[in-house]
């Protein structure tokens, strides 16, 4: 099923022509409407005329999250407030939030993007969809909301929190599609199982998961727990919100909405282009956005792109699931570590829950990693030996995957925080000691 088949199955040549035309437009538009870009492009000596091919994008200096923050709140807006119809803001866990503004045109392209991805995942106008992302300033909920309404699905804007009530709606309204973060989808499932209602009271068939990473193991756990088919989608508020890319039912990569967003994969240190199929940091240039156009935005997400057309018929490039963030990447004793690698080890083990916390410390001159996991298998309480064996086993598996030693701390079930929004898995105490 397609939402906009002609665009989604366009030939690579046509798509690249469209991208080039739109890239030139965006460079010119940024130059004329955003003083930050006028200065930046002048300094780099780049004008729209200098862009002769998509490769010429390399002459354009990248934009970072710090640029958005430095220009808080509206400094990067290319349109007067009169034409801005919506504001969203990022959570701003470090310093000021980043604020984004949308024109009517932007909201329309956003809902097109979402409608395409939801359709590709298998949602239809027959579905009843419960949105369990937090509404408010976060883009996730409203992004899915408008896209799903556009395809004619019935939307329940339930938001996050009050899980038992959300489960009641699910049972009583016959919800067929769940929109949630993977960790919240899993938490909802744990809660559902603890209630007196049988799982057959729930009619979920599809999960549209997003806003945080999800390992294949965690997805299997969500699918088995709920008896649904789950797809992943990707985006960020700076670019538009969710809707930048998403999986079709083939689930072999996330289709990038390439007519609206131009992706590049570069070396995170040198910013030089990586070869096709190589991992690197994803840079994205918006191609038609009016409110906040962004040139080569550094997503900090590590992934790779596949330009081969998909079995589903879509020709837009497929992005691999994000492997980690170039700034979330932990460097412990010189080894690059992504929390997702540890998650994949834990999810394969029945004795512990999939919730975990990583604590990094500096002791003397060496970094240490502590992995806190919750014990769920109470049969191990029979002897200290069994629990110590579990600790050793987890440490060994993590060492096999990461190549470093770590300390495993077993904590009580239910004591590691469950995240409704993005999970914060890492506590890095090294920064405090500097």
């Amino acid at each position, binding site marked *: 099923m397609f939402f906009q088949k002609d665009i989604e199955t366009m030939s690579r040549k046509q798509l690249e022509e469209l991208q080039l035309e739109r890239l030139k437009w965006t460079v010119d538009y940024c130059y004329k409407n955003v003083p930050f870009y006028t200065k930046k492009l002048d300094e780099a000596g780049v004008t729209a005329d200098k862009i002769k091919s998509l490769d010429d994008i390399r002459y354009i200096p990248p934009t970072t999250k710090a640029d958005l923050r430095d220009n808080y709140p509206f400094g990067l807006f290319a349109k007067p407030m009169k034409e801005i119809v919506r504001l969203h803001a990022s959570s701003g866990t470090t310093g000021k939030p980043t604020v984004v503004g949308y024109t009517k045109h932007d909201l329309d392209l956003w809902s097109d993007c979402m409608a395409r991805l939801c359709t590709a995942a298998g949602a239809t106008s027959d579905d009843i969809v419960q949105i369990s992302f937090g509404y408010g300033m976060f883009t996730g909920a409203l992004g899915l909301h408008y896209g799903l309404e556009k395809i004619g699905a019935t939307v329940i804007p339930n938001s996050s929190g009050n899980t038992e009530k959300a489960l009641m709606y699910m049972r009583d309204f016959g919800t067929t599609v769940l929109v949630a973060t993977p960790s919240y989808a899993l938490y909802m499932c744990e809660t559902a199982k603890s209630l007196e209602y049988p799982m057959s009271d729930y009619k979920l068939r599809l999960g549209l998961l997003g806003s945080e990473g999800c390992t294949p193991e965690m997805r299997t756990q969500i699918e088995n727990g709920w008896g649904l088919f789950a797809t992943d989608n990707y985006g960020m508020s700076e670019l538009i919100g969710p809707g930048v890319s998403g999986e079709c039912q083939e689930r072999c990569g996330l289709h990038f909405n390439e007519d609206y967003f131009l992706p590049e994969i570069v070396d995170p240190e040198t910013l030089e282009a990586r070869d096709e199929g190589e991992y690197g940091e994803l840079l994205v240039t918006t191609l038609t956005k009016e409110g906040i156009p962004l040139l080569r935005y550094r997503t900090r997400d590590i992934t790779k792109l596949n330009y081969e057309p998909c079995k589903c018929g879509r020709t837009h490039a497929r992005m691999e699931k994000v492997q980690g963030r170039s700034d979330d990447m932990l460097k412990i004793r010189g080894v690059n570590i992504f929390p997702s690698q540890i998650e994949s080890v834990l999810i394969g083990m029945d004795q512990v829950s999939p919730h975990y916390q990583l604590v990094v410390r500096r002791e003397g001159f060496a970094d240490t990693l502590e992995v806190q996991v919750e014990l769920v298998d*109470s049969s191990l*309480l*029979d002897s200290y030996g069994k*629990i110590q064996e579990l600790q050793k086993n987890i440490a060994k598996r993590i060492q096999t995957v990461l190549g470093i030693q770590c300390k495993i701390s077993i904590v*009580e079930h239910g004591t590691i925080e469950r995240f409704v929004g993005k999970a914060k898995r890492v506590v890095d105490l090294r920064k405090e000691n500097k």
Partner: protein
Amino acid sequence: MTPVKQISVFVENKHGKLSSIARHLADNGVSIRALCMADTTDFGIFRLIVSDYEAAEKALKAAGVTCSVTEVLVVEIEDTPGAFADAMSLLADNSISLEYVYAFLTPEVGKAYIIIRVEDNAAAAKVLSDGGIKIVSQDEIKANA
């Protein structure tokens, strides 16, 4: 042979953990007959023989505490020097290894109860009762509470 149910509770090495577990039991009218807890740096396993293990398990699970019920052997010996040594000799002489052991006294009857965790409860019970040592049942634990 009648094994007695023992509650094992996972306890993180954190301030106030043990008191909150004990409080859950008290609030549900559960009386503790015997307990044992060794210290490790991160966590401990708190083992308990209680008046009503079903009520104890229910109360702890309702409070979200990770716990399990295992069967242990409880035997009654005289509260006199040498009685414990005799019981342990019986097990040692028959090559029965102990995983852990702890004890409590019953001043009202002048006896001592030893709680024994072994791999094979039935084999240990036979050796001990053949040696003239009385095996204590779940009902007796409850009755003495």
